[in-house]
């Protein structure tokens, strides 16, 4: 385990160790109508963090269920209530025949939500770094993410223009902007991810329609020939044709997913690879094959257990993340002093309410 070559990051949790947490979380969430989930998240993270090693010591999660809960309540009051009233108003407008104004209102609220999704992403990262300790030192950010919200909005919109060609560039630019605002201890993160290495894989998305068309022609010919050979039955009537149709659909979906994962593998590799903290640099070595295995494993786990396995997904993803994460360089423990960034009192309420991921 402790050879020189070994990764700076390691994970030593186990299914068996995590299962009591996962199942009691599920039980308590059911009997509290879901309210316990804030404490459940905290318990899960405490387990995952404490079984993640960086160099010579474990990470520590210090977030609490209470702060997550308060954050959620705050968002319900600040965002949820106005939106509920707005929805009511829009319904009334439609009934009175002012569908245009209702549409405009709807569009305006869409933009507001869009803006807050950006802020939520930023703050989730800030919250997670602020609650993560290593050697008694934590991370954080003094930026509240208000300007990131704007960047998120315009970069995403510009990215979607020009037939989505600028999406990878916008994604990486936002990643860099987010991480450049973060720090750990006294050191600021520096993020210089480059979208270009992943771009070729992204272009595969544009080839997909051609591939589908080609396959479709071959498929149609095949079915046509097949049905003639079967005795010229009604078109689409043969069970083999139907089966092939299903396979064709699944194949297209799988191909789409494969392209997405292969793009994402390179994208994350480049994004993490562009990240540094003082004298430390980072790397992420998961290949497309690893991502596909993770994804297929997720599906098998959830389907094979009729959904209950979903409570282990967080565990799987964290383990994947930590085991593929790598760091190089030295740390000067004397100079790694405590972070003086402000700690927010509330958790990931926004993120929680808007249901978006943090990374």
């Amino acid at each position, binding site marked *: 385990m402790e050879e020189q070559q070994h990764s700076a990051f390691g994970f030593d949790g186990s299914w068996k160790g995590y299962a009591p947490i996962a199942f009691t979380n599920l039980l308590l969430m059911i009997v509290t*109508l879901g309210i316990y989930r804030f*404490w459940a998240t905290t*318990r899960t993270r405490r387990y995952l963090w404490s079984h993640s090693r960086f160099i010579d010591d474990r990470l520590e999660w210090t977030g609490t269920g209470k702060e997550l809960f308060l954050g959620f309540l705050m968002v319900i009051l600040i965002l*949820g209530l106005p939106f509920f009233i707005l929805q009511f108003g829009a319904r009334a407008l439609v*009934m009175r*025949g002012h569908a245009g104004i209702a549409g405009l209102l709807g569009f305006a609220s869409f933009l507001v939500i869009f803006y807050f999704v950006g802020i939520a992403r930023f703050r989730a990262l800030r919250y997670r770094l602020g609650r993560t300790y290593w*050697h008694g*030192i934590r991370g954080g950010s003094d930026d509240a993410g208000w300007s990131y919200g704007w960047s998120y909005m315009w970069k995403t919109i510009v990215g979607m223009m020009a037939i989505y060609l600028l999406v990878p560039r916008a994604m990486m630019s936002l990643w860099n902007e987010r991480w450049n605002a973060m720090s750990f201890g006294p050191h600021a993160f520096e993020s210089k991810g480059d979208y270009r290495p992943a771009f070729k894989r992204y272009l595969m998305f544009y080839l997909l329609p051609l591939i589908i068309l080609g396959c479709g022609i071959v498929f149609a010919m095949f079915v046509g020939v097949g049905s003639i050979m079967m005795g010229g039955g009604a078109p689409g009537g043969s069970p083999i044709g139907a089966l092939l149709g299903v396979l064709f659909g699944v194949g297209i979906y799988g191909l789409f997913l494969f392209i997405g994962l292969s793009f994402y593998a390179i994208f994350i590799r480049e994004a993490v690879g562009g990240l540094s903290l003082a004298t430390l640099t980072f790397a992420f070595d998961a290949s497309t094959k690893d991502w596909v295995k993770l994804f297929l494993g997720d599906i098998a786990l959830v389907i094979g257990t009729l959904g209950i396995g979903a409570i282990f997904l967080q565990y799987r993803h964290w383990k994947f993340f930590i085991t593929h994460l790598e760091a190089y360089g030295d740390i000067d423990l004397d100079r790694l002093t405590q972070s003086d960034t402000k700690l927010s009192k509330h958790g990931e309420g926004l993120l929680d309410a808007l249901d978006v991921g943090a990374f």
Partner: protein
Amino acid sequence: MPLTERIEAHPWHYDGRNANRWTPLLVGDVETFTLKGEGWDAGPYCWADLIALDAPAGEHVFGLKDEQGWRLGFPGALPEDLAALLPKPARYGGFIDRIGLGRASAVLAMAAAAVVFVGVKAPGWIAPLVPQSWEDTMGDAMAGDFGGRICHTKEGTPALRALVRQLDPHGTARSIEVANIGMVNAVALPGRRIVLFRGLVEQAESPDEVAGVLGHELGHVRHRDTLTAMMRQLGLSVVLGGMDGSTGSQVNAVLGLSFSRDAEHQADLAAIDAMRASGISPVPTAAFFARMGGEEAPAKAKGKAKSTTQPGRSIEALDWFASHPSSTSRQQLFANAAEKGRRYRPALAADQWQALQKICSADKAVKPGFDFGF
């Protein structure tokens, strides 16, 4: 235990100011302790200010109140005198640790059931206390004039009034109108307003069928079901729906169903009462339900209107919030309500009925309809 008992240990320590891992000597008594490193001293700290944290097996780690990053770790098993002074780590959090997981789950499940029960019942208790004038104001604000989609004709409007007079002689509803919307549907809006949709009036085969539906909606108005349903929707979506997407909304949907069924049944009984009082037969309404029941009884509705709306489905949502009892049981309820030997008369004369059916098609001024997601 003497107060002067001396305690010594060799923990590891992070001071929270930089990342160095110290290995000081801990010296203390039953109240406080100090840490003595090479060339530094820290403390005294109170044992009572320590907070137990998660630790890997075989280790015990503690934080200090209000000191971020301050950690004290004891490798190996704790000596008994030390263990007695140190706090125990929390497992599930709060009171669950104090009373145990099993008992806490039972208590919480009962509390959840109580919350759900109150959440279901409370709107029914509160709705009658809301001043009617408030509800009327809100209803008008919400619906307005339906964007000019209310149908009026010189013959059709009096025919509608004639029908209303029989079913609602005391004027429970503030307004009863036909809207230029093609769905087979009717709604009781907040503020004692009832809107019949054009599709309903056109697809009904007799005025008695319209009378049945109208009586049903009047039942909702009388019981203030719309206000109750709206309050319940608001309450549940905040309390449950907001808490957790999946569990909450499922609970919400199930409750919506069971609540509505009772209200719907009451509204059906009210319709039957109103029809009995005015001598209108409930049998055609039963036939109407049978016709609209979709798969159970194939629709015989006239071809052209049928294709645009799906009678089988729209009857399921006969009004705004409703998930209705099955058509078959409602059909039986109305069919059984017919009194043997009683002579019924049609709710409207033939010319009135024709005028009512044409109230929208003959209205040149009415705005074209649309389907909104009722």
